[in-house]
C-alpha cells in the first residue's frame, strides 16, 4: 500500500517539539495516542496552545475539533501558561473538612487572587486539584511540585508572599 501521507513538520526549531514527535512516534502516530501526546506537550511546555493543537491534529490525523475537545474536557490540561511559581490547593474531601475553604479565603483576601488566576506580574498562579492523595496530611497544597501538608491559612499566604517579594 502506498503511503501518500506526509508527516507535518514541527511548528518551530524548538527542540522540545522533538520530544512531542517522539511521543507520537512511540505509538505509531495512531489517533489513540492523543491524550498521551497532550501530556507530553504539557510536560515540556507547561501548557497547551493552538500551535500545539494544529501540529498534533495534523500528525495524528484527527480533526482539530477533537484535539480541542479532548484538551478542554480533561481538567489536568492547562490552556494558559502558568506563572513562574504555582500553588495548587487540594480541594479533596479531607482537605475540605480540615479547612481548605479558609485557606482559599485568606489567599483571596490577602493576595486578591482567585482560583485559576495568575498575579499580574506573572509570578504566582493559584490552581486547584481535586485530590492529590495525601489526605493523611490534610489540608495539603503543592508548591512548585512539592507537597506540603498540615497547612494553616497563614502558611500559604506567607509562602505566596515570599514568592512575590523575592525571586527565590
Amino acid at each position: 500500500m502506498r503511503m501518500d501521507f506526509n508527516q507535518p513538520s514541527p511548528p518551530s526549531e524548538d527542540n522540545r517539539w522533538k520530544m512531542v514527535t517522539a511521543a507520537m512516534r512511540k505509538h505509531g502516530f495512531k489517533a489513540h495516542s492523543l491524550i498521551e501526546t497532550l501530556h507530553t506537550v504539557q510536560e515540556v511546555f507547561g501548557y497547551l496552545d493552538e500551535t500545539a493543537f494544529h501540529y498534533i491534529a495534523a500528525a495524528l490525523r484527527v480533526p482539530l475539533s477533537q484535539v480541542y475537545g479532548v484538551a478542554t474536557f480533561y481538567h489536568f490540561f492547562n490552556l494558559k501558561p502558568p506563572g513562574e511559581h504555582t500553588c495548587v490547593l487540594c480541594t479533596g474531601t479531607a482537605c475540605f473538612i480540615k479547612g481548605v475553604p479558609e485557606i482559599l479565603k485568606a489567599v483571596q483576601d490577602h493576595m486578591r487572587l482567585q482560583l485559576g488566576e495568575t498575579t499580574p506580574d506573572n509570578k504566582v498562579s493559584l490552581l486547584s486539584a481535586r485530590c492529590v492523595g495525601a489526605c493523611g496530611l490534610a489540608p495539603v497544597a503543592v508548591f512548585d511540585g512539592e507537597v506540603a501538608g498540615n497547612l494553616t491559612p497563614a502558611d500559604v499566604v506567607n509562602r505566596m508572599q515570599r514568592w512575590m517579594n523575592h525571586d527565590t
Partner: protein
Amino acid sequence: MTPEEIQTIAVNQQKVRHKTPYHVCVCTAAACHSMQSDQVKNMLFEEVRARGLEKECTVRGVGCLGLCSEGPLVVVESDGDHPTQRLYKKVKAEDAPRIIGQMGKEPVADLLCPSDLPFFTKQKKIVLENSGLIDPERVEDAIALGGYAALIQALTDMTPAEVIEEIVHSGLRGRGGAGYPTGLKWSTVAKAVGAKKYVVCNGDEGDPGAFMDRSVLESDPHRVLEGMIIAAYAVGAQEGYVYVRAEYPLAIKRLRNAIRQAQRLGLLGNNILGTPFHFHVDVRLGAGAFVCGEETALLASIEGLRGSPRPRPPYPAQYGLWGCPTLINNVETFANIAPIIRKGSAWFAGIGTEKSKGTKVFALAGQVKHTGLIEVPMGTTLREIVFEIGGGIPEGKQFKAIQTGGPSGGCIPEKYLDMPVDYDSLSELGSIMGSGGMIVIDETSSMVDVAKYFMEFCVSESCGKCVPCRVGTDQMHRLLEKIAKQKATRNDLALLEDLCDLVKKTSLCGLGQTAPNPVLSTLRYFRHEYESLLRAESHARS
C-alpha cells in the same frame, strides 16, 4: 526465565536479607515522601556508612507503613535471638545519628510510636501484606516474599477454567465500589468470542479523599501486575492497560519501573515463564476526569477520546476496548488475586461476612486522630474503625458523621456506627462501599455544606452527555446554595428532593445516578440542619 529461575531469585534474596542483623526501612510512599522521607533515608544511609556498619545494617525505602499522619515513618528491625521491631514517627533527617546509635540498645523514646496501638493490631492485611516490607522499586524484594508464585502456580498447574473457578469460589467482589462478583465477570469475558481481548486495570481513583489505589501502586506494584497477568491467562487476553491518574506521578514511575522489571524477567511479554502465553501491558494516564472511573468512559479515554460514557449493554465484557471483549477490574481487586491463588479460595472465603468476603482497604482521613491507610476484614464495624483504629476525634470534639464512597456515597450518623462494613449494609444505610475513602466529620462541619461540596464536585465533573446529570446537578447545586444562604423556602427543599429522585433514576451512568446520594443521605439523617436554614416565614407557615 523459567519458574525455577524465579524461585532461585527468591532464595538468593532471602539469603541476602539474613546477612545483616539490622534493617532500617523508611516509608517512601506519597505522604511520607512529601514530608522529605527521601532526605531521612539518605541521612540514615550516610550515618550507617560513617560508622562503618554496612555489614551490620541495611537501609531501604519501603512502601506505605499506614500511619500517614505521623510521617515520615521509619522501622528498625533486628533479627537475632530476639527479633524486635521499632516504629519511629515524625523522623527528621537530623534524627539519623540517634536512631542508628541506639540500634541494639534502648529505643529513642521521643520518636518511638507504640506498635500495640489498635491502629496496627486491629488490621488484617492481604492486599497490603507486603506494603512496608518490600522496596517497591526492586522486583527481587517482591519475589522473595512470594511475588509471582501465584502466577507460576496458575501457568504451570492450572487451566484458565480452574483459575476462574477459584476466583468464583473465593467470593471476591469488585473493589471499585459497586461490588460486582469478580469471578462472574471473568467467566463472562472468558466466554465472550473475539480474536483479541483486553485486560484493563482501573486506577483512576477519582474520589477526592481516597488514596488506596495510589498506595497499593506505590508500595507493591508487582502484586497488581501479577493479578492482571493471571486474569489475562484466565480470560484469554493478550494485551492490557493500566489506567492511572496523572496526579499520581510517584505511582506512575513505580508502575512503569515494575513493568520494565517484569519484562526483563520474562514475566510479561511473549512466552511468559517459557509457556505459550503472551501478555503485554502498557500504562495510560488519566487527565483529571472523575467520570473516567466509569468503565465505558475509561475505555473511551484509553482510545484517546473524551471520557464520555455510553449506555450499557453491551457491557465491556462483550464490547469493550476497540470493540473487543474487555475485562475491567480495580487496582485493589487485582491485588487480591495472587493471594487467592496461592492460599486457595476456601481461605479467602473464610474471611469477612457471608456476602462480602475478604478484606477492604480504606483511606481514613478527616477529623480523626490517626489518619492513614488501613485494611480490615469485611464486617468490621464503623465504630471500631473510627474510635479504635482511628483513635477517635481530636480536641475532644463530638463525632457527627462518617462519609463513605465520596461523591457517590453518603454520610452515616452516630446511631448506625455499629453496622458492619460490607457492601449490603452500607447501601441499606443510603451510602455505598465505594472505592474506600472514609472521611470522619465532627460537630463543627455543617452537613448542608458537605452536601453542597459534593454537588459542586458533580457539577464540575459531569461530562455533559446526558441532560439529567448535566442540568440536574447544576440545579441541585443552586438549590443547596440557596439553602446555605438561608434564602430557601420549604418549596425549594421539596423541589430538591424531587430533583434527587429524577437525576438518580434517569441519568445515563453511575456518576449521575449516584450524584444525589450525598444530599439524600444528609436529608435522611440531618434533615433538621436543612430545616433550620429555611427562611423564617416558611417556618411560620408550616
